[in-house]
């Protein structure tokens, strides 16, 4: 069964949220409608309650690139998706195409996890493959990485993804709000939402590892 067909089935079985997106079916004659979940009551109003209407998935990338205040959303798991718009989608293929712009690969990652075929990559695997200026990131200590997760990841730091990775195969993450977060940035149950899954540390985290590694190195360097 295709990913789009599996997505359709998920919606038929009660899923209606991914990240900050509300997924609605059969609204004003459109098979699928998506919007910021805080706007979902507007969509049932005439003319979508004044929301700016986008037909088809083409504008999904533009809508997801900047937050309301114009900040570049450098990771798509950030919980600062802008409001005030609604997107109509003719079928589940277009729905999946749109979702893959808002939350890249997140439907596929969830389906793979459900199917038991999702491969997870430890932080060390990720850092050891970095090149150029980011090569230095691999020198971060385990303690430094554990601390950084609590400073960078999780909803308290605007990331809505559920961390699946460990520091390495033998070193799980320290318990924290970030490591416990389930990938659903609302109070919905797992029966109602597709969680955002983090199978590998993102490039923002890698960049932060590099900064932290340099700080560790500088702290160890003998004072002149």
């Amino acid at each position, binding site marked *: 069964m*295709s*990913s789009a067909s599996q997505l359709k089935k998920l919606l038929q079985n009660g899923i209606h949220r991914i990240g900050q997106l509300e997924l609605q079916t059969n609204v004003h004659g459109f098979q699928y409608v998506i919007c910021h979940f805080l706007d979902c009551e507007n969509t049932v109003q005439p003319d979508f309650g004044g929301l700016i209407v986008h037909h088809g998935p*083409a504008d999904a*990338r533009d809508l997801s*690139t*900047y937050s309301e205040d114009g900040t*570049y959303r*450098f*990771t*798509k798991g950030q919980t600062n998706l802008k409001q005030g718009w609604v997107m109509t989608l003719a079928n589940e293929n277009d729905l999946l195409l749109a979702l*893959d*712009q808002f939350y*890249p*690969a997140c439907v*596929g*990652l969830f*389906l*793979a996890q459900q199917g038991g*075929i*999702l*491969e997870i*990559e430890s932080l060390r695997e990720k850092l050891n*493959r970095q*090149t150029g200026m980011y090569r230095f990131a691999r020198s971060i200590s385990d303690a430094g990485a554990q601390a950084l997760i609590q400073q960078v990841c999780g909803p308290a730091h605007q990331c809505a993804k559920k961390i699946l990775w460990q520091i390495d195969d033998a070193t799980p993450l320290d318990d924290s709000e970030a490591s416990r977060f389930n990938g659903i940035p609302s109070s919905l149950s797992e029966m109602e939402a597709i969680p955002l899954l983090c*199978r*590998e540390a*993102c*490039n*923002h985290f890698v*960049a932060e590892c590099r900064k932290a590694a340099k700080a560790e190195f500088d702290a160890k360097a003998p004072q002149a």
Partner: protein
Amino acid sequence: MSIAAKPNSALLIVGHGSTENPDSSTPYFEHADEIRQRGLFAEVHCCFWKEEPSMREAFYLIDADDVYVVPDFISEGYFTQDVIPRELQLTGATTVVRGKSFHYCLPVGVHRSMTDLILKRAREVAPDIAPSETTLIITGHGTGLNQNSTKAIRDQVDLIAASNAGYAAVLDAYMEEQPFIAEWDQLSQTPNVVVVPFFISDGLHSFQDIPVMLGIESEVGAAASQREVFRHNPHHLRGKMLYYSSAIGTERLLADVILDQVADFDNLHLSL
């Protein structure tokens, strides 16, 4: 070159991406949209080294069992020869990874059809000047680490110089190796100079760094999409008329070059 529809195949466009510059990945998505609209592939996806989805996440985007991978990169080099094969676990022209066949095509920048795109871009940015009084400079990053990174540009310079385009001179110049683009006025002997950045996107280098090196800007500006006013040609600088185009990769017709690389792959590897 025309390409037959591949209704059972996916196309995976691989780019660099950036966590800092929102414009960096725009051309890749535009190329994907363009190809998607033509209905040639069952699926068209993008993935990146420094942006989401990552190359390793790309596997989870794809339903098809047959996948063409085209590096939307300007040259052969470290990324196309080391990073992309490693990330996608490719070991040859065609590699079966977890049941899917991945066909690894050459990067767009080395395709012969890039020549026409460069000339089109050069004419668009400076439509009213005589090529015989003009130096065309193709500029790239350049690095001492990999000779291949400048080969694609040097090849294009040779092809255009040997063509009937009529430019007084066709030169290559780089940000970080000689000949330096910052010395564009000394490199050229003509009153007009057209500079075409041989990059995929109007990201940090082509829209923020090189304009400073050319003298158009005094300091690195905001990202291209954040500008209220785009630069206007020509620029009267250093006693010459300078015309600066956007990056060659922002040309929507680059989608055709992606398809050309798929067709070339089939001709080279699958037609036996």
